[in-house]
């Protein structure tokens, strides 16, 4: 008798598998139920057993080759039994939808399986004709529960966290992010910081706001298939609070003196920590800055605050050895990370914008004179 060895369906969703090692070679004798070939699916590796006793006459699918479910992998025949290879090969593998075996399960078992996300095809039924009953699901859950980590707490996303999660995922899914990193010498900024008693953040906000003036495409939002470029430069500053991230906005940051920016930042940050930000404090931003330097982060890939075009990440200021004219000099350095929406702006203009920020920070002394 000619018996076909076919690709088994190892799970409900399996559509094809890979042939692994053949344990038997063509011409060898095989016993029924003896493992003859390894089959690899997405979920498992399985030793396929011979469906009949006989000679492994022909291997049709070689090791390492994929084959759909029910495709003929090999043929087992009696010794010297005639068979037509072409006939077997040209025979289309029956569609697995047709052959799909209906899983017998009681409605109660199905309900429980659904509630616990149990794949019924993995449960062995103890009822008549192998029907899966409620008890089988209970046992299955019990047996598999030792494999899954013990849950301590489940937090239902709601309110602020939920909105935040939605915004972040919308941004990440819709805006193709690309991040540029650039190291900046903050020697002058440090002097400015000390002389005027202003924060580094204030210095960077001002440098960025000035740079945005010269790169209006970055000072924009994307709505549908339209890019809206803003006249106003309103820089948002990401602030971590107990309840999550908020982004208060420093309005017209390009027109404000450094000292005023510094005061505004202090006020807004304080309000944010106390949860007292008003609607006007957090709306109308055209660009966002996120500072993780205080956590010793050097550089990172910030996620754009949608629908804005870009976001600037600020890293830690560290003294680094810099070579100037062949001499090693210690300089306070900081890395800026600019993530931008590649739909709105390409790499070169984004890099140009970032370099402009760098130059402004490095020439920090001039910042105060300009306005």
């Amino acid at each position, binding site marked *: 008798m000619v018996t076909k060895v076919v690709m088994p369906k190892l799970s409900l969703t399996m559509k094809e598998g890979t042939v692994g090692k053949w344990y038997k070679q063509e011409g060898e004798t095989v016993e029924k139920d003896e493992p003859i070939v390894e089959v690899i699916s997405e979920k498992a590796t399985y030793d396929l057993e011979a469906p009949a006793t006989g000679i492994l006459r022909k291997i049709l699918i070689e090791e390492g080759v994929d084959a759909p479910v029910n495709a003929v992998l090999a043929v087992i025949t009696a010794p010297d039994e005639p068979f037509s290879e072409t006939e077997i090969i040209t025979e289309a593998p029956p569609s697995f939808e047709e052959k799909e075996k209906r899983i017998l399960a*009681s*409605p*109660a*078992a*199905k*309900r429980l399986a659904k509630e616990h996300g149990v794949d019924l095809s993995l449960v062995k039924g103890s009822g*008549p004709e192998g029907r899966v*009953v*409620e*008890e089988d699901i209970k046992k299955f859950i019990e047996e598999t529960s030792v494999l899954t980590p013990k849950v301590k707490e489940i937090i239902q996303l709601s309110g602020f966290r939920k909105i935040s999660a939605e915004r972040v995922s919308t941004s990440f899914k819709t805006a193709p992010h690309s991040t540029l990193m650039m190291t900046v010498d903050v020697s002058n900024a440090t002097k400015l910081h000390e002389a005027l008693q202003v924060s580094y953040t204030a210095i960077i906000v001002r440098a960025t706001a000035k740079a945005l003036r010269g790169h209006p495409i970055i000072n924009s939002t994307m709505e549908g298939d339209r890019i809206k470029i803003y006249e106003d430069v309103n820089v948002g500053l990401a602030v971590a609070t107990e309840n999550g991230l908020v982004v208060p906005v420093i309005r017209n940051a390009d027109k404000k003196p450094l000292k005023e920016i510094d005061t505004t930042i202090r006020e807004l940050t304080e309000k944010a920590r106390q949860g007292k930000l008003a609607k006007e404090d957090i709306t109308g931003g055209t660009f966002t800055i996120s500072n993780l330097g205080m956590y010793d982060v050097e550089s990172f890939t910030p996620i754009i605050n949608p629908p804005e075009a870009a976001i600037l990440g600020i890293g830690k200021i560290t003294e680094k050895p810099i070579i100037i004219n062949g001499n090693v000099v210690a300089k306070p350095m900081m890395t800026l990370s600019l993530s931008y929406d590649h739909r709105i702006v390409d790499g070169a203009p984004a890099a140009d914008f970032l370099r402009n920020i760098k130059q402004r920070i490095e020439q920090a002394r001039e910042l105060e004179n300009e306005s």
Partner: protein
Amino acid sequence: MRKITYRDALREALREEMKRDPTVFLLGEDIGKYWGGAFKVTEGLAEEFGEERVRDTPISENAIIGTAVGAAITGTCPVAEIMFGDLTALAMDQIANQAAKIRYMFGAQAKCPMVIRTPFGAGVNIASHHSQSLEAWFMHTPGLHVAVPSTPYDAKGLLKTAIRGNNPTVFCEHKLLYPIEGEVPEQEYTIPFGKADTKREGEDVTIVATLYMVHKALNAAKQLEKENAINAEIIDPRTLTPLDTQAIIKSVKKTGRLIIVTEDCKTAGVSAEIAAIAAEHAVDYLDAPIKRVAEPDTPIPFSPPLEQYVIPNEKTIIKALKEVLQTW
């Protein structure tokens, strides 16, 4: 508590209601002082209340029910007895087309507060014209209430409610239940319609049973518990219209398995309706197919062995239980 028979419990209900309300009267064949009813339910009542209120009638079921309908709509409360449930067929126009519809047809300006007491059931070797269980006919007729008491306690409490009600009630008794004894309190009580009684608590399988089958189901459940440690819950609906569907659904949700034991024939029977309710409202809780243990679709045979063969019994109930419990 004192124990009395189902027959005596019914008689007590009739006596108490006749004392309470002078408009309550009885009519039927041989129910008076000469015979006291074919099953002796009305024995002694003619002597106590007089022949005006316990009226022997000619052998015409159509006339008995027609009289009762007329009396009911003109302000009295008749309790008619039809000697055998099978013979309600002779009065079916009065029951189904008159009694059941009067309140509806007259926009509740007329009502028909009457009770038809009648025994159903096989098992006493009196052949196919005197052994049927036809409760489903009346369930299938909107406008009628249908009571199916299985114990002396339920019989008394439900009959009193039926007599006090504003609607025509077909009060289904069972020939083999009359001599059965059970606890019945001395003091006054009634049982509301539409409220099932859990005759036995259990976790493994639900048995919905009516009338005499409640007792066979109880026997089967006892045996199953003893031999197989399986605990069956037995729900007795007590009234088929209105039917306590919530009690049935609740029990099915608890046990995940349902068998229905009724003495009527299987096709379009009481058990079919109950199975449909479980399928409609609790399918996601069923762990096995619903099983109906009912009579095959045949007239009740006169031959005693054949008669016993068609009536559900402890053995057929246990067989069905084992099938849904699938442990054997």
